[in-house]
């Protein structure tokens, strides 16, 4: 009995223990299967994840390339700069640390919010910039208080610095924090505190200036602390950009303009090198580099002199009488008038029963006299004979109505109207009245100061299609450093005879004996070599408002009687020396206290004298080797 019972116990136990062992064997197989899945099947994926965990790529910011003028004068460089960074995972609490930091250096509410927002988006071990551009004083105060500020570090970085401040600011542009929209593939853009070119040369040559990011591969632990550096690639510093600008001329021109809202373009008529491209008033690009306050922004953006606009390329002006160069050449080419043939000016020009006035009664004028006196009646007449399309064709050949090709952001095309254009744009028929307006550079025709300078240069250089150039070719290979070398340029097919007649007229504008429109623009060199040098030019005074009949009856008003924004624009285009043209200039003064001859011409004269004195085109430019060295060494 007892034995039976016992064997029954044993049998049941053995049965059940076998089931149990079997069950456990199944579970062990599950472990084996899982191990196989993780370590063999999915191994590659997990290996990659483990590497991702372990290895952190840290981009090394390459120093941004410098911007130099043609003689190597620095226009944009990098300056050492201290910023306060905070590593969120190393602080006790973020807001406490920020408060503590705020006791030492000034932090705005905005800074607090921005840091907290960034901290919530980034991984805890990534440093966040709290404030940049610390003064030495602030930096040392943070260092001294370092024990009380865990997680706060000082970073020595490079910031963009424009040593010329307001000089050439439009041209150079500025750098600023990267917008979301700019986030292209370049990993550099995601670096804290990285600045990208926003305007001007900084924007156009951003890629070259930026350089290539270096990278440091570091092994980090789970907390993001760096254990060791595995690999380091220094990257490439940004390339320097050498401009054609002569900083001295640029600077002088800006100074000469004073408080006027105005622009000046100086161009080498043979090479197209832009020696100055000035838009006044300007702004200090350094303010953009460090970040504008809203106050500063408001001041800049609401100023009616528009300091933020590069008027030299983005300002579109009625060319006024400077456009008569175009009309003259068109008239000669199409032989609608001979140079000697005269037109009688009695101060008015009848078109049907509509009267167009001349600013003066000139009497009988031939072509050179019409140019030098700027007789509107003469030009009404030849414009009428030509028709607008022939004028437009010549305007385009001289570079009007199209982009110059220098590529500055914001550059405008201007407008060279044609019959077809008016039909397309306004669905109106072109009228002879329109043609007359175009004949004196009013009406729909619009030009930029840069285009006016190109026009003057093409007249001066014998009708070659010179293209303006702002940046010296990056390699220096296609352009020998010899300043005398002239690039072979296609001819515009304008007869040299016609150009000579026009140039004579332009010379007479300034240099004809007796009183002239722009006698003030006579060069004043005293030295024997240059004493005989003259400048040739053309004035322009462009109305910016429609003059009503009653106003016309009352007679012209003095500019001083008008509010600033209603005054005429004063223009002047010129080249010099007259006998062997080398430089062309265009000056546009917005809403001036007088016409082109009174206001713009003396400015052009002063600047041209300076240009001729310095004669930058004849001096060797900063040579390639020098630039190469400058590029290789990061600027201190």
């Amino acid at each position, binding site marked *: 009995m007892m034995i039976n019972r016992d064997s029954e*116990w044993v049998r049941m*136990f053995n049965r059940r*223990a076998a089931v149990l062992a079997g069950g456990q064997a199944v579970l062990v197989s599950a472990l084996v299967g*899982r191990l196989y899945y993780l*370590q063999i099947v999915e191994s590659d994926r997990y290996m990659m994840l483990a590497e991702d965990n372990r290895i952190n790529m840290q981009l090394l910011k390459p120093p941004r390339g410098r911007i130099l003028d043609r003689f190597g004068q620095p226009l944009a460089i990098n300056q050492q700069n201290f910023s306060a960074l905070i590593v969120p995972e190393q602080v006790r609490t973020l807001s406490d640390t920020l408060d503590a930091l705020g006791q030492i250096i000034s932090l705005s509410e905005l800074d607090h919010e921005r840091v907290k927002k960034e901290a919530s988006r980034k991984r805890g071990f990534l440093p966040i910039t709290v404030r940049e551009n610390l003064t030495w004083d602030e930096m040392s105060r943070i260092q001294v208080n370092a024990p009380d500020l865990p997680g706060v570090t000082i970073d020595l970085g490079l910031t963009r610095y424009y040593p010329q401040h307001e000089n050439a600011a439009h041209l150079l542009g500025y750098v600023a924090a990267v917008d979301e929209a700019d986030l292209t593939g370049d990993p550099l853009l995601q670096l804290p505190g990285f600045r990208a070119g926003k305007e001007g040369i900084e924007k156009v040559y951003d890629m070259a200036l930026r350089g290539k990011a270096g990278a440091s591969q570091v092994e980090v632990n789970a907390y993001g602390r760096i*254990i060791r550096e595995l690999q380091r690639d220094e990257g490439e510093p940004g390339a320097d950009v050498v401009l054609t600008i002569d900083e001295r001329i640029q600077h002088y021109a800006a100074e000469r303009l004073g408080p006027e809202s105005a622009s000046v373009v100086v161009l080498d008529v043979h090479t197209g090198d832009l020696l100055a491209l000035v838009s006044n008033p300007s702004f200090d690009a350094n303010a953009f580099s460090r970040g504008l306050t809203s106050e500063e922004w408001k001041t800049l953006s609401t100023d009616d002199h528009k300091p933020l606009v590069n008027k030299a390329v983005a300002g579109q002006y009625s060319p006024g009488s400077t456009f008569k160069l175009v009309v003259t050449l068109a008239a000669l080419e199409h032989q609608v008038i001979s140079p000697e043939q005269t037109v009688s000016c009695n101060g008015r020009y009848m078109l049907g029963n509509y009267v167009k006035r001349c600013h003066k009664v000139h009497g009988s004028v031939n072509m050179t006299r019409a140019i030098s006196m700027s007789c509107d009646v003469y030009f009404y007449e030849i414009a009428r004979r030509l028709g607008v399309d022939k004028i437009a064709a010549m305007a385009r050949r001289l570079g009007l109505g199209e982009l110059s090709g220098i590529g500055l952001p914001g550059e405008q095309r201007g407008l060279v109207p044609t019959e077809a254009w008016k039909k397309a744009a306004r669905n109106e028929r072109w009228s002879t009245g329109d043609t007359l307006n175009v004949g004196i550079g009013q009406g729909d025709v619009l030009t930029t100061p840069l285009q006016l300078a190109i026009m003057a240069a093409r007249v001066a250089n014998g009708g070659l299609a010179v293209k303006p150039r702002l940046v010296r070719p990056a390699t220096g290979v296609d352009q020998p450093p010899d300043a005398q070398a002239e690039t072979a340029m296609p001819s515009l097919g304008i007869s040299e005879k016609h150009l000579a007649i026009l140039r004579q007229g332009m010379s007479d504008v300034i240099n004809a004996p007796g009183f002239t429109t722009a006698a003030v623009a006579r060069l004043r060199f005293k030295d024997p070599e240059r004493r005989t040098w003259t400048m040739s030019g053309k004035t322009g005074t462009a109305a910016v408002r429609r003059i009503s009949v009653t106003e016309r009856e009352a007679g012209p008003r003095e500019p001083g009687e008008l509010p600033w924004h209603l005054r005429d624009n004063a223009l002047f285009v010129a080249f010099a020396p007259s006998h062997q043209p080398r430089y062309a200039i265009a000056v546009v003064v917005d809403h001036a206290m007088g016409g082109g001859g009174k206001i713009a011409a003396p400015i052009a004269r002063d600047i041209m004298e300076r240009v001729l004195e310095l004669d930058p085109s004849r001096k060797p430019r900063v040579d390639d080797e020098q630039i190469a060295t400058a590029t290789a060494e990061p600027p201190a």
Partner: protein
Amino acid sequence: MSDIGFLTARLRRGNMSAVEKLCQISWSFVMWLCVIATFGFAMLYSAAYGNWDPWALPQMVRFVVGLGLLIAIALIDIRIIMRYAYAFYFVILVLLAVVDIRGVIGGGAQRWIDLGVINLQPSEMMKAAIVLALARYFQGISLDDIGNPLALLAPLLMVLAPFVLVLLQPDLGTAGVIVMGATVMFFLAGVRVWKFVTIGVASIAAIPIAWSFLREYQQNRVLTFLNPERDSLGAGYHILQSKIALGSGGLFGKGFMQGTQSHLNFLPERQTDFIFTMLAEELGLVGALTLLSLYVIVMIYGFAIAFRARHQFGRLVAAGITSTLFFYFFINMAMVMGLIPVVGVPLPLISYGGTALLNLMLCAGLMMNVWVHRDVQIAQRGGFSDL
């Protein structure tokens, strides 16, 4: 021949000398334990970046002490062990209660009692104690009694009491191991399968109630297990990092002391609960399967002892202890592989921890004890039966 026959008779009688018992100890079994433990020392050495301190050396010392404990327990007469099984159980139960009460008073959850030499974790010891107590109980009743539901009431309470106390600590993993160990005991003792089903269904019904008893972090762990993407930087982070470590180990691993996940702190608790992850990362699938095989060998010994034992108490103790060992390593490994939620169960003989190691050596000692006393006749009511 006669020698052996003589020995067998004395084995059956149970009045062996200490030397005879020593000879009876399966030294190959002890050797396998040493191999597993050595594995552990190596991993603890690696976990400390190639230092014997702070883990490997203390663990070795404890293991040597544990070996002494194992042999000592193996030599005790099994009937004495049976006699004191309940007493041992109650002492541990009281210690559990003390830990819990102190936790309530002190405000902080503590799982151990400082005994000066060692921080004793009663919940660990309970894993062995419950097996002993239940084996003692089922040795004492007949197969007919087991069919009687009332007879199961006492052992059920014996399980429930420590379960609740451990759960209150709160230590979900250990509570689970205790219940699973006990379930195995009931099963082996012959309790009808439908009763398990009934209890199982009732337990599932009680899950919502149990849920409310779980601390928030435990609830999170379960939820995260059910949906690992729920919180990739919180509780799920550990599972994910553990899987990355395991997976990146590949077939042969990254090499001893070369584990990046473990050494760069991506793994939590690499010296205790996640030590298997580090092992598998550094030694690969080969290393992981080697360790698994060693455990399987120890389990085979355990079941062999259970099948070979001539008394119900020995059978139940051997199978129960073996299963407890199984639950230890299964839960630990399944947890680090992301098969079950993260619960704090150490890897037997490998994880750093005094009580767990001593408890395991105690368990191994009990297994050996059953082996040494496999043929001893035990009366139904225990004690030294007549010949």
